């Protein structure tokens, strides 16, 4: 009997096989079909998920490599479920993006990546987790390298080497931990972490290895320079998945690994971590302001938004004073909300840039457009919703997460939070400027033949945007997913 999680992980792999053997050139219908199946499984997981249970759910445990204590161990808690749902949402969204590179290879590679993502978010044993973690890297590399735009070789190599370098450090650190404690099991390690897994210099080396690996993945300033190149070059759908889901692997790693395993180390370097988070929050949107390329602009804003996640996490985990319960809950809930919200909002922004790119014949500098509101009011209207969501307008999803993160981090790291607020301001400036140069003014000659949102595009845009409104207005259903996990984790931290 195959468990639900295993099914979720392997359905996309089967899909990849099916796409490869599919007689027709266009693999999209079959890929989407498999997406529907895995999404249905993910919904089933949500349906059966017990929101009050404190332990891992849907656990499947099989012996795998007994010699090194590596088990096939998967299970979900609230955070894992949230990310599984996010993945199930973003991948089909990415398949519907334009402009799309054709061919079966593209879809097969994407599906392999999807499978790896599910695995990463559900594996509860380091060896298995690391396998999936690396397994997502290679499809991402290929997707950029083969189907990317200008400078794709350079960007892909940089992306691969950078993240791979990080992974190597992480692997070595875990080997060190394994030799000391003899286990790869996340739950066991987390309970051991309170008293320190390692001692002396080794502990610091292991901490640094894991930290750098995850910081590259998120990315956290200053380990971010691979990101603008990669996001800019990758085809729209891939950029959507990179920012929507892949970047969350890093945040997830921080929550699942670094913070529970190294509570003491994190407290000691806490202020420095907060400095890095605040740098992400302030410098990334400043750089976004200076970009002309829309994709690069959105890419920089992604760094900023993930910076908020890092701020919330570091504030509660790394500050020398133990945060009050309400602040701990606020910060963690805010981070989890932000993970999901940034996933859909940033993906939507890339989707819209893709629509513009397709209409303009793959030009996407802010200078290439003007006065679009007169020609394509619907496109502009819906795109503005995504932009306002991204800048944290109340009533849309972005506000909830950001408000809670700031609420939680203000209590323990007031000065850092106060500086981070500048990030909110600059994000608003960046979008206000973008809207001004894209939507207003006289209609640019080159845009005079743009079609407005097509029917099939509306079918994609409307549900995603509605989700932003629903989360912004009545977010309780989202909180229900992870409230117990939040309480659980804040107990671990205090």
């Amino acid at each position, binding site marked *: 009997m195959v468990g639900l999680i295993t099914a979720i992980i392997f359905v996309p792999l089967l899909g990849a096989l099916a796409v490869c053997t599919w007689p027709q050139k266009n693999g999209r219908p079959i890929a989407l079909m498999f997406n529907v199946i895995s999404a249905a499984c993910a919904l089933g997981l949500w349906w059966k998920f017990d929101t009050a249970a404190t332990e891992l759910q849907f656990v499947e445990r099989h012996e795998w490599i007994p010699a090194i204590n590596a088990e096939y161990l998967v299970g979900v808690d609230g955070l894992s479920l949230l990310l599984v749902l996010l993945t199930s949402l973003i991948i089909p969204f990415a398949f519907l993006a334009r402009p799309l590179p054709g061919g079966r290879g593209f879809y097969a590679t994407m599906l392999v990546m999807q499978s790896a993502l599910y695995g990463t978010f559900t594996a509860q044993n380091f060896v298995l987790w690391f396998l999936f973690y690396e397994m997502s890297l290679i499809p991402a590399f290929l997707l950029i390298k083969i189907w990317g735009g200008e400078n794709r070789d350079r960007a892909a190599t*940089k992306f691969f*080497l950078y993240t791979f370098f990080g992974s190597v450090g992480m692997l070595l650190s875990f080997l060190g931990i394994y030799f000391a404690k003899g286990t790869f099991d996340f739950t066991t390690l987390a309970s051991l972490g309170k008293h320190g897994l390692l001692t002396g210099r080794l502990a610091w080396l292991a901490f640094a290895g894991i930290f750098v690996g995850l910081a590259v993945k998120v990315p956290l300033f*200053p380990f*971010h*320079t*691979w990101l*603008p190149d990669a996001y800019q070059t990758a085809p729209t759908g891939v950029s959507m998945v990179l920012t929507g889901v892949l970047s969350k692997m890093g945040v997830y790693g921080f929550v699942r690994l670094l913070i529970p395993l190294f509570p003491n180390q994190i407290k000691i370097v806490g202020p420095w971590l907060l400095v890095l988070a605040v740098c992400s929050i302030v*410098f*990334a949107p*400043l*750089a976004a*302001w*200076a*970009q002309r390329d829309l994709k690069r602009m959105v890419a920089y804003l992604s760094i900023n938004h993930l910076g908020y996640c890092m701020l919330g996490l570091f504030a509660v985990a790394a500050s020398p004073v133990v945060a009050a*319960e*309400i*602040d*701990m*809950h*606020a910060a*963690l*809930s*805010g981070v989890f909300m932000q993970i999901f919200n940034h996933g859909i909002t940033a993906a939507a922004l890339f989707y819209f840039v893709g629509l513009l790119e397709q209409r303009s014949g793959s030009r996407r500098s802010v200078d290439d457009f003007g*006065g679009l*509101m*007169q020609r394509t009011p619907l496109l502009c209207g819906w795109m503005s919703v995504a932009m*306002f969501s991204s800048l944290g*307008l*109340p*009533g849309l999803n972005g*506000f909830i997460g950001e*408000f*809670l993160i*700031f*609420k939680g981090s*203000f*209590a323990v790291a*007031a000065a850092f*939070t*106060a500086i981070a*607020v500048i990030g*909110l*301001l*600059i994000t*608003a*400036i960046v979008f*206000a*400027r973008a*809207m*001004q140069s894209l*939507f*207003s*003014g006289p*209609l640019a000659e080159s845009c005079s033949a743009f079609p407005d949102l097509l029917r099939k595009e509306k079918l994609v845009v409307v549900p995603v945007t509605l989700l932003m409104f629903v989360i912004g207005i009545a*977010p*309780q259903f989202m*909180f229900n997913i992870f*409230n117990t996990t*939040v*309480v659980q984790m804040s107990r671990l931290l205090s």
Partner: protein
Amino acid sequence: MSSWIVTNLWLIPALPFAASLVILSLSNVRRKSAAALAVIGQLLALAFSILAFLPTLQTHGFRVVQNFNWFTFGEQTLRLGFILDPLAAAMLMMIALVGLCIFVFSVGYMAEDRNFVRFFAYLSFFSGAMLGLVIANSLVLLFIFWELVGLASYLLIGFWIERPSAAAAAKKAFVTTRIGDMGFFLGMLWLYNRSGTLLFYDGGNGCLESAGLAMLGASPAVAGFIALLIFCGAAGKSGQFPLHVWLPDAMEGPTPVSALIHAATMVAAGVFLVARVYPLFSLGAINGVTPSLTVVVWIGVTTALMAALIAVAQADIKRILAYSTVSQLGLMMVSLGVGGVAAGIMHLLAHGFFKALLFLGSGSVIHGCHGEHDIRKMGGLRRPMPVTFVTYAIGMMALSGVPFFFSGGWTKEEILHATAHWPRSHATYYLMLAGVVLTALYMTRQIIYVFFGNSRSASERVHESPRVMTTPLIVLAICAIFFSVLLTPAWPWLHTYLTGESAQFELVRLIQPMFFVSLVLVGAGIGFGIWMYRNAGAPERNRPAEIDPLEYAQPALFRFLANKMWIDELYNRTVVAFSWMAAHLSDWMDRYFWDGLVRGFGAIGQLFAIFTTSVDERGINAGVDETTAGARSLGRVMSTAHSGQIQTYLGVVAIGMLALLLLYAWLA
């Protein structure tokens, strides 16, 4: 019926919101439906506001709150709520009524616009958000509506989106107010952190009630900082110095928008906010003075005087009114700062009516003059536009504070009264008196330029506006006059309504010594204006017609004021330039410094690779090559034996066999 609305206050903002949603889904040609929906939504909101207003009359200090859970995070709950008290009810009435007048006016004013439908969707959206703002019983909920009115303002300033100037003004408004809002946001976080709740009133546990204030009162300095951070938001929205720069530019929006959002309601939200969280400002007050309130006073004074001065030298009919709005908002802030909360709110309400009237009047003038904004090109309009003229004059006198018959006169009097009794400084009182003179002066100047004298280039072939536009003018003019009934010191009904006391009728109080001071000052302002501008727009001695009399008399001063004291230029050279540089510096650092480091690491890796390659090639590989070469030559020698000829092999086998046999024989 009315108790039902008290527990369902959310309906009041929900109706315009719903109207807005439906209108947004209409096609661009359904003009009549759009206008009808918007007006009906607003009408219903007004009806419900009246219903909500009625119960507040019954008891003094009426206050009912309806709190509910928004969401639960972890084990904590964020609660929101709606409140009905005199402050909220009075604001509801003003906003719904002024809003309705402006909605009706817009039907005429925007009749020819291509995006008529979208206009009404935005307008209804604004109305919903504004109505929600005043009944919020939670700082978060207030902040949410606060941002939504900001969004509506952004959309409506940039409504004529094909104009680059409108888009730039919209962006400026959005960004400038957001600077203030970030302060507000931080203040909110801090308050939440200190008092553990953001509900204003919650059966004794709210942040404005004794328990919450006691928690804050432990450190009055912190309470003061929180209040000032919240005031940053108020200053941004209400156009207080130094964040006032967006408001005059916001006049790029259609005139009804300027009337509703940038004169009567949204810009007053800052004043309302300060009044709403007043207990935070006055916490630990000695004689009604706290450091935070003192800051409010001086910001207000600076704003009021600066804007009034600038207004004297503007030529755009709407910009004069915009600076006047900034100045009046400053006045309201002063009133709140010196402790006259009721007076400030009364002026806010009265100002809402007469300033909306003036803006709509200016809209009627602009409509009549075919889109001309420059008052120097108008003139003599009192004959072709009698209704506009009379109503405009009423608005002008209310704004100037002409006593007895006009609402503005009474409320201004109250504010001056409060200012005079401020223990901290008497300078504010005298500065406010100077503001009174200036206000009368610039309004006189404007009215002379527009309605008197001979008609000039833009005012030929002008006709009165249609009934749909003049009716709201008349309604607002009546409000501007009859509102005074509730304001006089003889029967200070509104004052007591807001403070929760009961009003006594005493005719004697109508005559007060300070009253004559302002009578003289207003007279002086108007008289000086008439004298100075008696021949405005016409040549006079050495002065050409197009030169302003003040410009002729004081060219340097006039230039300083006409250029808005060069504050925009100053900001552009400093704050804007600095941020833009910071943006490019960040980009540069990213491309060259941080990425340079990464590439440096890459280069080190490559160097190492080159080194190992050469070791491999010359050292290890060379040795291997030598060995293999030896092996190969040996093989070559050996391979000659493998000739492939059976005879040779058989011969060798025979020789071998022979040798073995011989060996065997020898050994045996």
